[in-house]
């Protein structure tokens, strides 16, 4: 069972995690990660997230299917927002569940690494002193090699 949601609206990470956990039959481990917009350099007004409608859902579903083929997951959840988000806002969430802890942790990390550089999202930082697109870093691409 996998659920992928791409949306502008905020979400309640606690409520999402609870309903995800309740729906997992036979899971002994649930792992979740929530990404939050942070003001790294100071003066960030907002993060504008652009995506490729149509491709985004397909790309994320493909990444989730890939994870399910590698780890015995009872379920996976991915929520990713787009649009204008202010510092402190929740930007995305991943949850995985499996019989065992290691599979749930590894699958969650795998999903995070692939979402970062294979799902069609682009971030623009709008700050006090101007706006600029966040550049992909080599470390993100390198992170895929461990899988």
């Amino acid at each position, binding site marked *: 069972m996998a659920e992928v949601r791409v949306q502008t609206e905020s979400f309640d990470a606690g409520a999402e995690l609870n309903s995800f956990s309740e729906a997992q039959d036979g899971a002994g481990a649930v792992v979740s990660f929530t990404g939050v917009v942070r003001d790294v350099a100071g003066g960030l007004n907002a993060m504008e997230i652009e*995506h*490729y409608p149509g491709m985004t859902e397909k790309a994320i579903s493909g990444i989730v299917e890939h994870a399910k083929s590698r780890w015995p997951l009872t379920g996976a959840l991915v929520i990713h927002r787009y649009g204008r988000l202010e510092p402190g806002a929740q930007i995305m969430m991943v949850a995985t569940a499996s019989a065992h802890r290691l599979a749930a942790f590894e699958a969650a990390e795998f999903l*995070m690494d692939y979402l970062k*550089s294979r*799902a*069609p999202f682009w971030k623009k930082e709008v700050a006090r002193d101007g706006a600029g*697109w966040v550049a992909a870093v080599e470390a993100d691409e390198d992170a895929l090699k461990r899988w």
Partner: protein
Amino acid sequence: MTVDVLYFAWVRERIGLPREIVETGAETVAELVDELRVREPRYAAAFEDVSALRVALDQELADFDASLEGVREVAFFPPMTGG
């Protein structure tokens, strides 16, 4: 043939359009890029360095030497920064 060409992030900003219909004789993505590049300076600026770009054909990531045969939608964008 005609293809829908989509641009995202700074590629969209440089070209000044999110999408357009392009009449092309290109057989590969690289040939399409060559055709676009000579159109106007804003295209030349967007496609100045294709190693800084990614391409998707009908919403699947592809290489610049990929064939355009049967393709309806071509999208150009910088490396993704999700998560």
